[in-house]
């Protein structure tokens, strides 16, 4: 019964850590609640929830700043924060733009980056962007902090590298070099309040007419948000020409593992993800 689940609302990180010292059985973290409350309503895993740790009030986790060439995004930064932040808009416009596309205004005011990451849905919209950007995640708990590369964080379908006594604290994104870009395209089910059918994010640039530092990540086409290393390998050091695009596309379509579900067929997802790659690549070079 939902009303009988005990809730601890932490007012500071140490207070949250105190509870995590000996996590009660079935502990779940609550940030904005836009995933968790939906799951509760649908009774998904309700019986496994024994205690809720509400971190929404932890001001120290709600920030966007810049330090040592890194853009740092706090776990509780909402889509609204990312959408409106001058820093994000200047340094990583793709993330601001994506945040404007997530859900609709109400969700943007409440949904957090940390929630998107820890919910670990293969269709979580920020995840391919974070992976393509080369982000690392800083997680912490009573035993201290550690850093995990974004592309190592999602270990299996809806499973993360987070330990039961750890919180996601922030994402750190290396800044783009002047010749580099981060681009993406989301193909959802409609124009707002829409879950991705597929989402492709690319980072990289051209040096002397050849692609360099290319990273490719895709959402909604595998059990986890996927870094597409074969596609990257097919592109690195190559000029953006028809040959390279075809090779990268073949590599990408081979390494993603889409399924058929209510939102679309596997064949559709495979082809469209390839189309997105072909469409987005010239933007890296240009």
């Amino acid at each position, binding site marked *: *019964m939902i*009303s009988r689940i005990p809730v601890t609302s932490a007012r500071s990180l140490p207070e949250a850590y105190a509870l995590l010292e000996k996590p009660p059985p079935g502990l779940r973290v609550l940030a904005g609640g836009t995933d968790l409350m*939906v799951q509760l309503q*649908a009774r998904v895993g309700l019986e496994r929830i024994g205690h809720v740790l509400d971190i929404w009030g932890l001001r120290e986790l709600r920030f966007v700043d810049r330090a040592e060439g890194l853009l740092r995004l706090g776990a509780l930064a909402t889509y609204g924060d990312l959408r409106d932040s001058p820093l994000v808009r200047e340094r990583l416009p793709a993330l601001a733009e994506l945040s404007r596309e997530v859900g*609709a205004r109400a969700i943007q005011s409440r949904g957090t980056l940390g929630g998107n990451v820890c919910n670990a849905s293969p269709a979580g919209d920020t995840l391919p962007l974070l992976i393509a950007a080369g982000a690392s995640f800083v997680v912490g708990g009573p035993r201290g902090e550690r850093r995990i590369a974004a592309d190592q964080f999602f270990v299996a379908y809806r499973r993360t590298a987070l330990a039961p006594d750890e919180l996601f604290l922030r994402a750190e994104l290396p800044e783009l070099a002047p010749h580099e870009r981060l681009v993406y395209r989301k*193909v959802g*089910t*409609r*124009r*707002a*309040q829409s*879950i991705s*059918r597929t989402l492709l994010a690319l980072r990289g640039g051209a040096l002397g007419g050849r692609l360099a530092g290319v990273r490719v990540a895709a959402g909604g086409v595998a059990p986890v948000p996927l870094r597409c290393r074969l596609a990257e390998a097919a592109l690195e050091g190559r000029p953006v020409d028809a040959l390279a695009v075809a090779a990268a596309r073949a590599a990408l379509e081979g390494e993603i593992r889409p399924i*058929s579900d*209510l*939102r*679309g*067929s596997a064949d*559709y997802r495979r*082809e*469209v993800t390839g*189309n*997105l790659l072909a*469409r987005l690549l010239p933007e890296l070079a240009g």
Partner: protein
Amino acid sequence: MVIPAPPGKMGPVPLPAPELLVGQSPPRLDGLDKLLGRARYLDDLTFEGQLWGRTVRSTVAHARIVLIDFDPSYDWSGVTRVTARDIPGENVVQLIDDDQPCLAWDVIRHFDEPVALLACADREKLEEALRHVRVEVEPLPAVLDPAASTQVFKHYRYEREAGRLAEAFARAHRVVEGSYRVRHQEQLYLEPNAVCAVPRADGGILLHGSMQCPFYVQRALKRLLALDDERVAVVQTVTGGGFGGKEEYPSMIACHAALLARAAGRPVKIVYGRGEDLASTTKRHPGVVSHRTAVAADGTLLGGEIDVLFDGGAYSTLSPVVLSRGAIHAPGAYRWPACRVDARAVATNTPPNGAFRGFGAPQTLFAVELHMDRIARELGLDPLDLRRRNALRPGDRTATGQELRESVSALEVLEAVAERSGWASGRAQPKGDGPKRRGLGLSLVLHGAGFTGSGEVKLKARAGVELTPTGCRVLAASTEIGQGTITIFAQLVADALGLPLGAIEVAAPDTSRVPDSGPTVASRTCMVVGGTLEGAARALHRRLAAYAAEVYGGDAERIACVGGTFREGARAIATFEEVARRQLADRGPLVIVEQYSHPPGIEWDDDEFRGDAYPVYAWAATAVEVEVDLDSYETRVLRVVTAQDVGKAIHPLLCVGQIEGGTVQALGYALMEEVVHRDGRVANDRLQSYLIPTALDAPPIETILVENRYPHGPRGAKGVGELPMDGPAPAVAAAVLDATGALVPELPITPDRLRAALKLGAAPTASLGETPLGAAE
């Protein structure tokens, strides 16, 4: 935007009282309460000692019930339990064929079918108790594909000059064939189904609920509970939308609440969650419509054969009448020198399908309209010219042999849309050569106003007015479900009485207080009930004028109430209020109830399926411009231009609201709305996966109101409620065809379906039984 039709076409109708409020758009009578959150929906009401009710549902599509087991080890105290055994009357939800049980007893015929009921004061205990009921079954083979069904609920066949069909096909320049498929659509009213049954001391039931048709519910309760009229009262509460979804289903949930309330001796409230509502209530009928058409080289239709197959679901419910409207609209807004329509509704082991805005017409009109575009393409003709050539004109006969006499506006709406949409230049524009392609499509539809065939004649709808000291009270069973019923009733009655709007009250529909005006469906509320009310108001006016003449002197024939004062010519006699108060004191209450009757000369033959299927038709043409993204196969609607002849817009703003809302709902039908079944169970029973358009998906809509008055409607009004649902889907499909060259013969046009059609290259055809209707992709 509202553009009045050119004068001359409107044919002024002589009226005894001027139109002062009619044709204006005063604030909705229910608007402020809804805006301020003061309107109290069923779930906002608390009843003394109330329990909550829940439904135990089947988890299999077809099975024999072996045992309904209430876990003996569970503590059932405080929980009321009901099964079919506890039904005092007949275990049936009364409708047409009466084949649907209120609670399944021996056989389960669809997933999520009600089997038992529980009530409890504590909602959490109730949820827990629900998990302690086990329905033991012996599974039976389930029929999920209507093409494989052997149980036919209804079969209609009708013909026009069938003897000439063979000849038409023999001399045709071309014979064009095509099959078109549509899927389940959910009404998705904002407020899910909700009722509360209150047991009465006399053994009767007082039922409050969100509904369209209080008298349907009352009849169902009487039959189930074996009670007479006096002991069953049904009151409509503020209703958050219906779209047909609250035509027949509220009878079911009302029966459940009433059984629980009688068993518990306390009020029982049942409020569905969205998931339960999506999974178990009625949907728009899915179907397949096939056309075989003989055409001349210039595009003239020579003859056609049309085959309609609707999936009724597990029980017949409203399928016979949905099918008849579907069958009558199947030939579309065109002249057919010879034509044969064969229409069947069959049973499958899926939740029953039922009423939904348009009621069978959107399905068959989608088919005939897209078929017109197929013909135009095969013949190399402009789809607009093809429609111009074949559109019905005044004096023409429809496929049921009905001569169209009045208010026939096919060409008028078509030309209005052609012009405002920039058809010629829009079609000539390059489609684009990058990933984005543009296209323009068109549709022309008609929609029969009021009940089909002899429906109104059998119904004998009644409505009336009651004199109050300051004006009058409208007495009708028609429900306000967000569409504006009470406001337009007040406008019509106020103008007939020469009163301001504020002098008119509208009584809440309560079966113990209002006459049976019939259900709030079939675009009949304004034309049929509004017209009857206007007649009653005029009769009241005559009575008061006569009384004023008697009391104050003067010639009753020349006395009229104008602006709240009775006058004879320029001479003011007395205010309405003075006359009303005096009349009430002198002679007691004054109630005038009138009965609707069809205008003279309307004849329908049920057996032959021939004659005047409707007293009149409303007409609409719709142009849609789309942009298709060939990278993602997404279709975006850029704009809609639509011209709709509603006879007379009593309240133009509400009328445009109906058209815009219906258009967006129809765009959802065209592009994304689809209830997906897996093994007979609704797989997308949440708003995350059952998609409707958001505000960002809604394009700019330009509405042209055409007012070609219908002489027998109130102030010339026909119906508007369903009309806007008919045209947009085929116009979208035609625009996609124009943009990409791919004819997608199936709704909704999802990216997957468009991709499949493009891969097939040539215009593909959905064949019967290719995949079961509603099969998951």
